């Protein structure tokens, strides 16, 4: 029977090619616009580490008090980064399964090849547990050990891109690299790890940057050699000391911190620890305001830092609005198309076709319009995703891509949406009174 309905649908669609083409175009455009926006939205709002994000937490301690968030910041949120004193204290206490304080650095590297100019690289000073905590993939070697943190080891982990540039992509573990005029031993090479957003340090990278993570070196070593931070520095009061050392002694915040906690018990234990830490500091006279800590998991943290640009959300909403408008339109056109065939329906009904048969017949026809529109939508989505480079900043546009799930979703949405739009017209068609139609003819 389905084959017969398909045949009927093709015949009917061929009979009014203009109207059919119009419906297909409308469905195609509507689906393509929303899928293009969705692909951008999916790229920027996706969970960067879905298998673990609910176990990664960012602690915040209110070290500034009311003066620090007297203006602008909503709901009295404490500073979104840490000062040196507290970051180091939390690392020393080591209450999570894994944890790392980190700050962004931008040193220069003198390539081993004497013919090459010095180059500027980007990266982070981190603790050894950083790599295990974030499941960072290695191509060669691995992280430095915990003793590397303790001994302030002159070790470095480089990303595959930098490895390609400096060592031609070979296994460079054990080689020496000159960073800011000092020698470091390469202990590991990452397998092209460049998560977007840069979720482990949103504060210093803004989430989406064109910047690369070229290398990681021990936090303790970076502090030793005075490798200054390249990210944001926020101060509620003027540092008393000068230079990078002065910054470390100040209450300015510039260090990102992340901790892995395995279960609910661990989370509440860590919360208690954090509150206890604040009370101890308060008892020692450092603060004179009330406890105001936060411990957000990664998704909540990214939300509170507004990592997904609101423009992207607005675009998605507008595109969805466009899709709805297209469907309303398609519903109107299908209604016109179906009711024009009232006499045909009358004949079928008079010859004994039940209402259900009319239903199926017209839903098949709507589905066919949807499928064809979906195929057109696929083409247009492909064009759209390649065209967003032209409209959106490249840090964001370059993340949008076509994959199998997007293709499948495009087709499914096109068919389902068009059939939904066809529901009412089909209902009307099935209500056609056979007697009336036969009489007027």
């Amino acid at each position, binding site marked *: 029977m389905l084959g017969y309905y398909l045949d009927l649908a093709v015949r009917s669609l061929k009979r009014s090619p203009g109207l059919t083409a119009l419906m297909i175009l409308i469905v195609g455009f509507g689906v393509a616009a929303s899928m293009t926006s969705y692909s951008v939205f999916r790229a920027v709002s996706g969970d960067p580490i879905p298998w673990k994000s609910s176990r990664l937490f960012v602690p915040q301690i209110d070290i500034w008090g009311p003066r620090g968030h007297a203006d602008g910041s909503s709901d009295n949120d404490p500073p979104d980064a840490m000062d040196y004193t507290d970051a180091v204290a939390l690392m020393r206490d080591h209450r999570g399964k894994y944890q790392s304080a980190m700050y962004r650095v931008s040193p220069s590297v003198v390539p081993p090849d004497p013919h090459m100019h010095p180059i500027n690289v980007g990266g982070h000073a981190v603790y050894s547990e950083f790599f295990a905590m974030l499941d960072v993939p290695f191509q060669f070697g691995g992280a430095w050990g915990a003793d590397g943190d303790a001994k302030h080891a002159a070790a470095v982990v480089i990303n595959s891109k930098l490895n390609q540039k400096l060592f031609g992509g070979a296994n460079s573990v054990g080689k020496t690299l000159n960073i800011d005029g000092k020698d470091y031993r390469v202990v590991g090479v990452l397998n092209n790890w460049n998560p977007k957003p840069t979720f482990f340090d949103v504060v210093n990278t803004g989430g989406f940057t064109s910047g690369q993570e070229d290398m990681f070196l021990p936090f303790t070593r970076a502090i030793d050699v005075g490798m200054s931070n390249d990210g944001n520095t926020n101060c509620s009061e003027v540092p008393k000391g*000068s230079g990078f050392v002065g910054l470390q002694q100040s209450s300015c915040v510039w260090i990102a911190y992340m901790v892995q906690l395995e279960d609910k018990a661990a989370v509440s234990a860590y919360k208690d620890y954090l509150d206890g830490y604040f009370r101890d500091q308060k008892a020692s006279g450092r603060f004179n305001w009330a406890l105001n800590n936060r411990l957000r998991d990664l998704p909540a943290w990214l939300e509170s830092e507004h990592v997904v640009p609101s423009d992207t959300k607005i675009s998605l909403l507008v595109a969805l609005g*466009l899709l709805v408008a297209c469907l309303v339109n398609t519903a109107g056109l299908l209604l016109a198309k179906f*009711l024009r065939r009232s006499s045909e329906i009358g004949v079928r009904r008079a010859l004994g076709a039940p209402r259900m048969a009319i239903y199926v017949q017209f839903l098949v026809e709507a589905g066919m319009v949807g499928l064809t529109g979906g195929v057109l939508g696929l083409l247009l989505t492909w064009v759209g995703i390649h065209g967003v480079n032209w409209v959106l900043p490249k840090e964001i546009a370059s993340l949008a891509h076509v994959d199998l799930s997007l293709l499948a979703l495009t087709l499914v949405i096109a068919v389902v949406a068009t059939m939904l739009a066809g529901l009412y017209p089909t209902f009307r068609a099935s209500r056609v009174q056979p007697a009336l139609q036969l009489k007027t003819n």
Partner: protein
Amino acid sequence: MQIKPILTAMRHHKAGTILIAFQIALTLAIVCNALFIIQQRVTRVMRPSGVEEANLFAIDNQWADSASVQNVGAQIRADLTALRQLGSVQDAYATNSFPLRGWGWDNYVRLRPDQVHRTSDSAIFFTDDHTLATLGVKLIEGRNFTSSEAHDVSIKTLAAWPEIIISKDLAKKTFPDGHAVGKPLYVNSDASPSVVVGVTDTLQSHMTDSDITPFAYDAVLVPGYLLQGMTRYVIRARPGQLQAAMRDAKRALVTQSRMRIIDPKDGVRTFAQVRAKAYERDYGMAMLMGIVSVVLLAITAAGIVGLTSFWVGQRRKQIGIRRALGATRADILSYFLTENAMIGGCGVIVGILLALGINLWMVMRFEMAHLSGLYVLIAAAILLLLGQGAVLAPALRASRVSPVEATRPA
């Protein structure tokens, strides 16, 4: 005139009427919000920076040996001398950041050291006596810095800067009575204030985010060369020699010293490029909203044409009877135009409510501004005209239906 028969006819095709009206309402709601977003973005992009942007460019210069940045002061001075001597260069200065750069240093500005709420979040630009001439910004009060006031400033040593020049908007905010020169302002120290020695004409800060709009024109110029890993040179080429100056300047810097990194891709940028980068999100958003609006209007028009054509086809017999009974072509035409205007009117009324609702929701959710009535009216007019335009072709076809049709079977 014919309102009553139109209403009666509408009752026979309720669903189609409602669908068209709803389509118009939805289109109106989306289009006027989109128009409003476009207008806001265009206003942002069009606002003046205060800088004479033609013939201006900037070089991002990173010192290769970042361990010894404490000693680059002499090199900066030598670089500036070399740059200013170039034939294609009119003037140049060294700084940490400049208007529209997006990133830089900003400080809370306070009138009293114990003030809790900030008066402003101002850009901090390190400058010297050549800055105003290079940027093409006029001094409207007080004096410029002298060459001897530009000292080396080591990173994060924040002794109060003794003298500063502030932008017109910051001066208005801090000293509404109009006399800023000679007044104290707490910019980088709670212990001692800086003294305002001059006020510039309009000058934009480096920040272009929409959430700092109230402070977009607040800038503090500080005399000195900031010693840090990155030094930026802002250079004014002689008129018409921009390309030559960009080439010459980079060569001159490398000749001075090779221990620097200037990104081959975007290390040297014209101010036009700086501006395009600063507002790329706004351009993008405006473009996107424009595309969506056009597509949506086209689709709505197509839908109206489609559905009205169907109605005309369905009513050929009735039209023929009316014609046979003496209705003129103009009567038939005006029937369909009036019908469309009525449906459009209903759609527009619902659409306006919908548009205001969406806007209200966006105001709460995305900190957008309130929709101005003008955009609602413009969008409503566009949609009513669009409806009349779309219905014209099928209505003309209807008016050409011959009275003979009345006698033919439907």
